[in-house]
């Protein structure tokens, strides 16, 4: 997996931006916090220094100068590394006692360096907080080195930096991981799509069953691929079946034409052979016409029809015609229509006529002698139902979906007449009129039911 792709992934770049924002916030808040800590520590230490000064000054007032000098020495020697500072200066700022060599300028509480007798351990000039004030004719200075403040500041700074670093690293790691995960899923999708476009209809995107956007997209795409592969499958079958159906009459036409040529050569009458040739070509023409028509109807979309077609008139007329055909085939055809209903639909009269012709012709063609065909027309609310029922061989349940595919035939030997486009056309025409077709079992026989939306009223 390309690292660049992962780093440019949505998850990683979102995390990366959050991390940047986090660092900015951390610096800002850290600075404020450090300042606050410094200020409150200085206030506290200042109080402390002042208190010590007061105590030493009070020694002087109560016990005399010697006591005070003693207290100063105690304080100056107490602690380690010059942590405490105390000194008493006499006239002309001469050191009387203590560990500060030079008297600091000014009076009162100050923060700044002191000339301490003991150098700071790491040789760094360190600030003191110190209080300078007169005690009788002398000047008393008490100070406290600000190590605590600096140590605290360093600690806080280190803590902030370290935790900030850890947080940022963790964030980036998580972002990288997420980005890698989603990139992997996206690559699955990409692979599936490119394989599909190369003609592999079986490939599907692995579904993880999650609820992320990618999971949802994967599921949607799989559904889409299901539909697509069904369509590709149907188209493949259709093309193969069409080629097969066209090749047979073409082959027969070749044969009979060859026969006719031989007959001419021998001086015989080629009439019968030529007629056969013509018959075969005619069959091809019918297949081409029906197939063209089917594609036209399917491609036409669902534009509104402006004409009103009365399905009862149309069916009555066709039933009359087909009753004779059925009669000749030793079959019967009956028509039953529910009265007092409006059978008007908006549609194309020619298409609907063809739809009903195909239904009736199918019933006659596939039924044997004695087949009873009944046509029923009724309307319930907005739906008009046309049912054609026969007592013929029917269609097995597992083939009922496939018979709507163009050129699909139940009888693989194709001994029955027909283009194999009849039901495909019926379905295309019904759907073009916002209707549907369903096949059912008449036990024995077939029920074909076409439901079409009637004109309201």
């Amino acid at each position: 997996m390309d690292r660049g792709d992962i780093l440019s992934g949505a998850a990683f770049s979102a995390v990366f931006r959050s991390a940047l924002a986090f660092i900015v916030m951390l610096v800002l808040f850290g600075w404020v916090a450090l300042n606050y800590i410094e200020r409150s520590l200085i206030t506290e230490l200042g109080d402390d220094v002042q208190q010590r000064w007061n105590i030493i000054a009070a020694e002087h007032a109560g016990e005399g100068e010697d006591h005070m000098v003693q207290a100063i020495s105690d304080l100056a020697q107490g602690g380690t590394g010059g942590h405490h500072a105390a000194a008493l200066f006499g006239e002309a700022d001469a050191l009387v006692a203590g560990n500060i060599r030079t008297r600091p300028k000014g009076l009162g509480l100050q923060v700044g360096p002191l000339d301490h007798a003991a150098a700071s351990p790491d040789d760094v000039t360190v600030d003191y907080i110190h209080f300078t004030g007169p005690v009788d004719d002398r000047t008393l200075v008490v100070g406290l080195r600000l190590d605590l403040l600096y140590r605290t500041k360093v600690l806080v700074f280190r803590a902030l930096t370290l935790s900030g670093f850890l947080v940022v690293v963790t964030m980036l790691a998580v972002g990288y991981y997420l980005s890698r995960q989603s990139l992997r899923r996206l690559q699955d999708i990409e692979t599936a799509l490119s394989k599909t476009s190369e003609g592999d209809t079986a490939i599907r995107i692995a579904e993880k069953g999650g609820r992320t956007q990618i999971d949802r997209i994967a599921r949607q795409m799989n559904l889409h691929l299901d539909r697509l592969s069904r369509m590709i499958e149907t188209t493949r079958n259709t093309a193969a079946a069409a080629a097969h159906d066209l090749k047979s009459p073409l082959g027969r036409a070749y044969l009979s034409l060859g026969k006719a040529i031989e007959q001419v050569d021998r001086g015989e009458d080629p009439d019968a052979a030529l007629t056969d040739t013509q018959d075969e070509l005619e069959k091809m023409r019918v297949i081409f016409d029906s197939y063209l028509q089917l594609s036209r109807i399917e491609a036409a979309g669902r534009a509104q029809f402006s004409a009103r077609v009365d399905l009862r008139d149309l069916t009555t007329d066709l039933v009359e015609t087909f009753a004779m055909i059925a009669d000749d085939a030793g079959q019967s055809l009956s028509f039953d229509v529910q009265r007092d209903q409006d059978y008007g639909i908006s549609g194309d009269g020619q298409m609907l006529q063809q739809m009903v012709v195909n239904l009736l012709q199918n019933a006659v063609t596939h039924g044997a002698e004695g087949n009873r065909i009944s046509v029923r027309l009724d309307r319930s609310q907005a739906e008009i139902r046309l049912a054609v029922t026969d007592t013929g061989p029917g269609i097995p349940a597992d083939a009922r979906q496939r018979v709507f595919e163009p050129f699909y035939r139940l009888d693989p030997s194709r001994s029955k007449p027909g283009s194999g486009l009849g039901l495909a056309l019926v379905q295309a025409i019904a759907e073009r009129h916002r209707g549907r077709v369903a096949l059912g079992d008449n036990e024995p026989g077939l029920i074909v039911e076409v439901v079409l939306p009637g004109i309201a009223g």
Partner: protein
Amino acid sequence: MKILLAEDDTKVADYIVAGLSEQGHSVDHLADGRDAFSYCLYNDCDLAILDRMLPGMDGLSVVKALRASGNSLPVLFLTALGQVDDRVEGLAAGGDDYLTKPFHFSELVARIDAIVRRKTDTKTVSTLNVHDLTLDLLARTATRQGSVIDLHNKEFSILEILMRNAGRVVTRTLLLERVWNFNFEPNTTVVETHMSRLRGKVDKPFDTPLIHTIRNTGYSMHGPR
């Protein structure tokens, strides 16, 4: 009769020109739509056979332009576009009939006859006669040798078309169009079934058959020759 044929498929055109000339027509052939349009404007002819898809100007536009200029020349469309919509479009534009490729030559002849007769033969008749068969169009009855023949609606329509075209070929397609109003190939034996019943009524009881089958094409009605 003088006929203009506008067709860009040379093989088809040669075939039609040869066939129609054999029938005694004089045929001029053009392969371009614009040429066909100006030909119709400046030459006298009785019928134009136009391909729908022509270079220069398509057949539909030629007819529209002709009709717009007040020309009422009979036009027969000849085309590979055989769908209902195309047909309706072609007739709406001012075409007189519409024939889909591939077609039988006899179909073309029958259509030409029908168009030209429709244009010239305007007088209405109330009875039709072929040999000893009489069809009364007003009473809607058929009689032969004095006996009345009982006919269904469709049978009557078939007989009427056959008798109006007595001596000429009436194709199966034409019957499907005129009797059943089918503008598609129904893939059924509708015509054959009705024709055999009609024969059972019109010919069988009598000694002279009047309805003759023209193999692979259609039917023709005539008395003994």
